[in-house]
């Protein structure tokens, strides 16, 4: 059984006191205990950003790669060893800026993995510039006159791109976030969990107080139904998309969409007879050579 003590690391996190990343780290560790994920069988792949250092502070296998690129690394790890629990973690700049292409393609691929985005609507590690999820008008070092672009809506992109588990969490609500991540990891397919993660140093707008006053849980609203694929049943997708656009006095968190669809690895022809990580002692190529004779 995995216990909290098994997840301890040599060093402790060095995030700013109060950073939303602490909540995400704690939730992830709680999930590893709750779901009994063995550290040896878990890989957390990250990019670059404050939050991407998360795999240094939870004991498991980790790959800390390049800015914007955790998803290709994580995807390949899963494809080479589908027995591993694979979680990709990165910030909003990492995933929705540089990594946007990978984000969309990873969702349509539907590998059985989880993507947690530490979404603080600002660039923290580079000391405060506008991010792809910053609101229009946000004044930062790179947009001193205010951002004049619209923010991306990752939840809506999830719908458009074929993610099979689409959720939004809030780092200030640990039990709720823990459950969202646990359900995402248990889900057989690509789980997107965008997490509001207040940056206490550089984002003075989207603060804990900002979210505390606005967030509501979708599951608490009896009129909301978690959407699924539009089949012969009544379609809930339009309502779920409309909810994902809510931004103002009320901002929803929770599960927007869930679908059971064949995973990429279950259909990958190269995985029918084993895993790429099992490199044989010897490979005979006589039959292949005969193709050229």
């Amino acid at each position: 059984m995995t216990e909290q003590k098994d997840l301890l690391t040599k060093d402790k996190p060095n995030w700013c006191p109060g950073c939303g990343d602490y909540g995400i780290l704690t939730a992830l560790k709680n999930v590893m205990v709750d779901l009994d994920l063995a550290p040896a069988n878990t890989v957390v792949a990250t990019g670059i950003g404050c939050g991407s250092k998360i795999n240094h502070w939870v004991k498991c296998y980790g790959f800390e790669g390049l800015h914007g690129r955790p998803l290709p690394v994580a995807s390949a790890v899963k494809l080479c060893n589908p027995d591993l629990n694979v979680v990709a973690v990165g910030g909003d700049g990492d995933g929705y800026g540089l990594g946007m292409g990978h984000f969309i393609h990873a969702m349509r691929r539907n590998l059985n993995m989880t993507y947690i985005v530490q979404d603080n609507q600002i660039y923290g590690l580079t000391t405060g510039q506008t991010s792809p999820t910053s609101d229009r008008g946000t004044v930062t070092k790179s947009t001193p006159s205010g951002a004049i672009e619209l923010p991306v809506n990752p939840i809506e992109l999830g719908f458009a791109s074929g993610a099979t588990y689409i959720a939004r969490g809030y780092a200030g609500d640990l039990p709720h976030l823990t459950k969202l991540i646990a359900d995402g990891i248990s889900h057989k397919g690509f789980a997107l969990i965008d997490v509001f993660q207040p940056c206490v140093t550089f984002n003075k707008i989207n603060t804990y107080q900002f979210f505390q006053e606005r967030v509501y849980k979708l599951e608490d609203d009896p009129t909301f139904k978690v959407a699924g694929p539009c089949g012969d049943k009544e379609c809930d997708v339009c309502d779920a998309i409309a909810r994902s656009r809510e931004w103002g006095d009320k901002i929803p968190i929770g599960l927007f969409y869930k679908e059971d669809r064949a995973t990429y690895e279950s259909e990958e022809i190269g995985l029918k007879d084993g895993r790429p990580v099992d490199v044989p002692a010897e490979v005979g190529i006589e039959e292949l050579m005969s193709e050229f004779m």
Partner: protein
Amino acid sequence: MTQKSTINILIGGPAGSGIESAGMLLGKSLMRGGASVFACNEIMSLIRGGHNYNRVRFSYTEKVLCHDDRADVVVALDRESVEEHLDEIRDGGVLVYDQDHVDISKLKVPDGVRVLHVDLDEAAAGVGGAIYKNTVAIGVILGLCGLDLGNMEKILRDTFGEKGAEIVANNVNALKKGVEVSGGQHFEIAAGEAAAGAAEEMYLNGHDAFCLGAVKAGCRFVGEYPMTPSSSILHTMAKWAEKMGIVVKHAEDEIAAMNMIVGAGFAGARSLTGTSGGGFALMTEAVGMAGMSETPCVIVNAQRVGPSTGLPTKTEQGDLRQVMHASQGDYPRVVMAPGDPEECFEMGFEAFNYADRYQLPVLVLTDKYLAESMYSVPVFNEEGMKIDRGKILDEKGAAAVTAEGGEAGGGFFRRYALSEDGVSGRTLPGTPGGEHVATSYEHDEFSDLLEDADIRVAQMDKRMKKMTGLLSELPAPELIGEADADITLVSWGSYKPILEDVVARLAAREGGGVKANILMIKYMVPFHADVVGKILRAAKKPVLVEQNFSGQLGGLIKEKTGFDFEEAGGAKILKYDGRQMDCEYIITKLVS
């Protein structure tokens, strides 16, 4: 009849007219008939239209190593092919053309060239339709050469059998029709030994050979994005995916492809990507990450004409410096350049061993010429090829490099433990007790991100130590041919067989042979500076041969050894028009 020992055929036509597959079928049938064959394709970056041509060169008495810009037979399927290649036909050769396409009376046909008008459309129409035109053309070639149709008929059956008996019969009839309209045998080709060994020959290109080496090495993950001329690796590995258990991912871009193969290497698979210069530019950052995180992976850069989009379907050796210096900072890497299919196979196999044993990216340079040209070669010898995965630790092995005690209770694996050879033991995900973070940041032995100067220096020195081990292990370059030569040809990559042909032809030159030998550089990083310097300083006339503008290998040699070709009374033969030099070109440059 014209007596010949080697015949060079050129089939030219518009893109989309199937001349590449016609050349492919012809080459394979000649190989099966016991001939030594070389074929190459010149295409334009178009799906249809433009001027494409395929050269097939064969002999039953000599080893055919490379292409020849002169032709004995030109089969022109369009006007442009006549105009472009008429002057290339040798005395005693034949131009096969279709009167509908060109008014031959307006062109100057070289002396001694026979003009053979064949109405391919009409001939094809008689056996089932225009799609059989290329088979008729093959029949014409076989007729002119007086060759038996048996091997070709069998190939047509193998190729078109699935499409039904009628299609096969039409093709065979088209072939016979071609022989009929060829007007009889024109060449008397020197007969070789009985074709007993033919069954042990393969007809393949450099990338086919490389892929065989990769599969032999246990490569089971390919992440790639299509780009000419590297896509053949993606296609071949995808074709073998099910049979050999290879996961082949056509990624969304080269950045993803490269990051994927690093992820795959980290997970424990032997991983590969292929690209060309433009795609490699996108991969660059992640190549450095493989160096920093000490993750094994193999990258093929199949060079084409640069910079930028350049000439996408033409050949060049212009990416040596790009690959040698890819990514910021210093990190250990191997840069290698095989020169022919045998080397593609052997070095392709070894690339994965070096990647695993030294935990670094191995960069393989090929080019359009090597990647796409077809060579007949003996079946590869698999004996003695051993997969060596290097220092991969199991649970017990991990425990030996794990720190005990400390505030958190210990049990922390030292992924980047300092070692004599610079290589640390690594664990693969799934191994208990080996949990660690592989990181793109500078780090200490435990992967922790510390910016201390001494840790930085210790880790940098550790990584760069790998180059010492590699240099002592990689085979040093050796002169090909006699040590005592008047000319020493120095080159790399796809020029190997061409220079071998040059040496043979120089020796056999009328009016007194010239003795030449060859120094091929197969490993650029790390570089055998002492050996190369010694060989070159002893050379009477060193001549650098490269397919690029600046002589990139020459620059590397000068940087590493101080040897300068011009100062030493040598010469440089450089070409950068996208067309590989043939023997004749090089010989003319050498003796002029």
